[in-house]
């Protein structure tokens, strides 16, 4: 049986980790390579780098970070932010990413999912989705970091994402993101019921039990968190021990 995955996400701006990471033993708290290496040491099952500026000029610096990390970290690396073309995908994979993550670009141009899956394989293509309750019992998809409502029905969108060949969906709930009250179990259940591809829970982790709860109550196969791990409030081994004690398969 596959283990459930715990995935820390590092937001990177101009080659530095946003807000910094508070780790013992890591001197430069803003160095993404050092932070990724520390997460690797802690037992992260995968590491996500997200380029939050995603400007054309900053691309080179960001890919240098990916390249350097791939020399020191030997678990899968997923890289997102600013990937809008097949060429961007190729360049990112060549820098050492194992998977690329696309979000707004996929909503604006769904063909990008099909092209990426066709050329590089489904296993390389993660579609990130920011979604929010629409007030009528459904969910709608947002782009540009959750700022613009695309008035696209979430459940229709995830079906299309799967049908176009995406290998995974990373589902971020805008309603629970930053609130720290736990992952959005309702939204996760709704999405997991619609697709067979793996769904990564994102947004809302605030305490230890939140991870196990997401795995026990929804079909999510992985859970992602950022600040919770960065500030050292919880460590990856703590989260894994809690899940393991509840019978959830963990590496």
């Amino acid at each position: 049986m596959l283990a459930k995955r715990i995935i820390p996400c590092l937001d990177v701006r101009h080659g530095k980790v946003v807000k910094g990471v508070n780790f013992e033993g890591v001197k430069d708290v803003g160095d993404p390579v050092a932070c990724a290496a520390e997460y690797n040491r802690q037992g992260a099952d995968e590491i996500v780098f997200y380029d939050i500026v995603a400007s054309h000029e900053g691309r080179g610096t960001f890919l240098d970070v990916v390249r350097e990390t791939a020399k020191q970290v030997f678990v899968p690396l997923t890289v997102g932010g600013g990937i809008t073309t097949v060429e961007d995908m190729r360049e990112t994979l060549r820098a050492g990413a194992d998977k690329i993550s696309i979000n707004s670009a996929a909503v604006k141009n769904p063909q990008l999912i099909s092209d990426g899956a066709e050329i590089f394989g489904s296993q390389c293509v993660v579609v990130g989705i920011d979604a929010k309750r629409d007030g009528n019992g459904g969910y709608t998809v947002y782009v540009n970091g959750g700022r613009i409502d695309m008035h696209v029905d979430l459940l229709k969108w995830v079906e299309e994402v799967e049908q176009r060949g995406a290998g995974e969906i990373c589902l971020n709930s805008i309603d629970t993101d930053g609130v720290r009250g736990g992952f959005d179990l309702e939204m996760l259940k709704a999405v997991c019921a619609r697709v067979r591809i793996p769904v990564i829970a994102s947004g809302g982790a605030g305490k230890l039990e939140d991870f196990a709860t997401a795995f026990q109550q929804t079909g999510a196969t992985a859970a992602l968190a950022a600040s919770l791990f960065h500030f050292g409030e919880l460590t990856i081994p703590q989260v894994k021990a809690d899940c393991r004690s509840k019978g959830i398969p963990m590496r």
Partner: protein
Amino acid sequence: MIAVIDYGAGNLFSVCNALSFLNIAHEVTKSADVINRADAVILPCVGAFPAAMESLHATGLVDTICENAKKKPLLGICLGMQMLFEKSDENGECAGLGLIPGEVHRIPSERVIIPHMGWNELVITQESPLFDQIEKPVYTYFVHSYQAFCDDRSIIAYADYDGKVPALVTDGNYVFGAQFHPEKSGEKGLQMLRNFERMAK
């Protein structure tokens, strides 16, 4: 020195990054001379079976690899592992290197997601120096849609994915194949690469 066969493989750089990190001397090569003087050989992986075999044949190294596999350790990774078998039916029937008896077919279960992607636990059925200094449980990272079908004697470890997926295989002598990616399997994967280097000495 380990010769890493260069035939346009997708994970060539990840494998080399891991070997460099471990300070294991290696040469990325298309040269028969380098393979002949290497202590061991790694066959990395790329895309689909027939295209990979075609690229490998295009290097003209097939006979050299098979000859060397009789006298020094050879490790095939992912598709490189599948290529060690006699044939595959991915995108039409295609002959492999035939170093281990068996065939490669699509993962048969319809109850699980294909590709088999993620961390799965190895069920170890034979002792191997490749597991030296590795504590159980051993989870390794898999990404594949096709799998080997072979005799249990060739299997050192398998993973359970609604059926037995051969994960680490051998010809009983020098030939080894890992369906998973040791270069993406964290510290335990790195230890397997160290152990492989040790076998070469």
